[in-house]
């Protein structure tokens, strides 16, 4: 099995004091890897650094073995990495359809990709012309994930998709991730505070604490350790 993403000795932060310290992380192709940790552990900071919104002060990020240090943020999605940010990032002023198209404007097959997302998320198909700010939390999360899928990514970074959602919807989203992985070989790096949900679909996971990786092991071991089952 090869690794789609490799992170080595990553250090990053917002000012003088680093938030992320010496992060090592390997994401095997076609797997679902979850990143767990308390509020402020540095999970969002890690994803933001992976997609170039924050520049690391040390360390390496390799996507398919390619160093991302000099790659512009807006190029990454073309390299196959899509990032659904914390809070979802639905553009409130644009319609559902415009939000989705925005996910793959550079693609020749953007219309086909958008149509596939409507098949995947029925409720969105009924709200094509609605502005983003009129959607419910669940619909927003569908739109954010759907929009990322329009890019036909190989690696999907998700920042707390379950936040503010009913358990039923969270379960649907987790099931969808599993289905996509099986059907299309999508790799997912899933940041979650909801360990139970994340571990129900993940193959392996890491626990972050104070900007470091405290534990890195299989999902089964994490379930045993944290969920007592």
């Amino acid at each position: 099995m090869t690794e789609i993403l490799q992170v080595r000795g990553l250090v990053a932060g917002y000012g003088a004091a680093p938030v992320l310290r010496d992060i090592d992380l390997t994401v095997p192709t076609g797997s679902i890897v979850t990143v767990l940790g308390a509020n402020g552990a540095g999970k969002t900071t890690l994803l933001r650094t992976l997609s170039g919104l924050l520049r690391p002060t040390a360390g390496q990020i390799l996507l398919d073995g390619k160093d991302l240090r000099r790659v512009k943020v807006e190029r990454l999605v073309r390299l196959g990495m899509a990032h659904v940010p914390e809070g979802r990032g639905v553009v409130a002023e644009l319609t559902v359809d415009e939000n989705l198209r925005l996910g793959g404007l550079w693609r020749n097959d953007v219309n086909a990709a958008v149509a596939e997302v409507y098949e995947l998320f029925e409720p969105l198909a009924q709200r094509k012309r609605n502005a983003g700010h009129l959607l419910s939390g669940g619909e927003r999360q569908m739109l954010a994930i759907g929009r990322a899928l329009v890019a036909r990514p190989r690696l999907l970074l998700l920042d707390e998709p379950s936040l503010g959602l009913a358990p039923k919807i969270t379960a649907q989203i987790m099931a969808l991730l599993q289905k996509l992985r099986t059907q299309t070989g999508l790799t997912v790096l899933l940041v979650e505070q909801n360990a139970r949900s994340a571990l129900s679909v993940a193959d392996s996971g890491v626990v972050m604490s104070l900007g470091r990786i405290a534990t890195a092991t299989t999902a089964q071991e994490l379930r045993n350790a944290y969920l007592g089952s």
Partner: protein
Amino acid sequence: MDRFVFLTFDGLSNGAVYAAFALALVLIWRAARVVNFAQGAMAVAAAYAAYSVTQATGSYWIGFAAALGTGLMIGALVERAVMRFVGHANPLNEVIVALGLVLFIQAVLGMLYGNEFLPSHTPFSRNAIEVGGVPLLSRYDLFVFGAVAALVLLLALLFTKTSTGLRMRAAAFAPEVSRLLGVNVGGMLTLGWALASAVGALAAMLVIPTELGLNPHAMDLVFVTSFTAAVIGGLDSPPGAVTGGMAVGLILSYVSGYLGSSVTPIAVLALLLIVLLVRPGGLFSATVARQA
């Protein structure tokens, strides 16, 4: 009654120019949250380029095209070389830099062309066509309406029907998310400035021949008037800018027609003050509460 009809058409013709210039202000406001106080000076610079080209080629239309092209370039240059480096920590920063640009551009134009008024011609007659004995509109007025209507239509198509328009809107509303989705946000900002500056140049080309002629300060009053129109329209709304421009054009035409043209500058200021006091958000403001 004849006089009222004449003033109405004259007001609408000027209003079309104010609408175009207000649109340019709105374009930059939407893209960058900056009121471009240098827009008048930038537009005049483009009009001077047109003057030189027309002098050299003898063709109004080549000069006209040169004004639009120069407008695009000046806009891109101002964004790339100046505005990009101004910190956003304090909203005054951009205003101060823009005012500095005004002084700079006007000084350079003065050195190159002198400060006296240069003659500026229209491509069509400005004699009003009479309908039933009442002078209504000149051929030039029709040209102005046509040009502004075409502009409004093209901008509407650009923003609502094209991928580039969608990218520009997304980049303005949500720059970080747009970058994650593959949008070159910096490029969209440059494009926004270039477009707005070309629109400003168009307005300058339309209005300068109807006033005293070409001069580094030729757009000063038009700027204040159009700024008023843009504020009336809410600063954020292109339809608001067009409606505001037409309304201001009409009001000023009646003021100058019935009270005298010396009152117009004061009327502009009074109008601006009233709008800022009564409805600072503008009459068309439709700000969507931002949610995550």
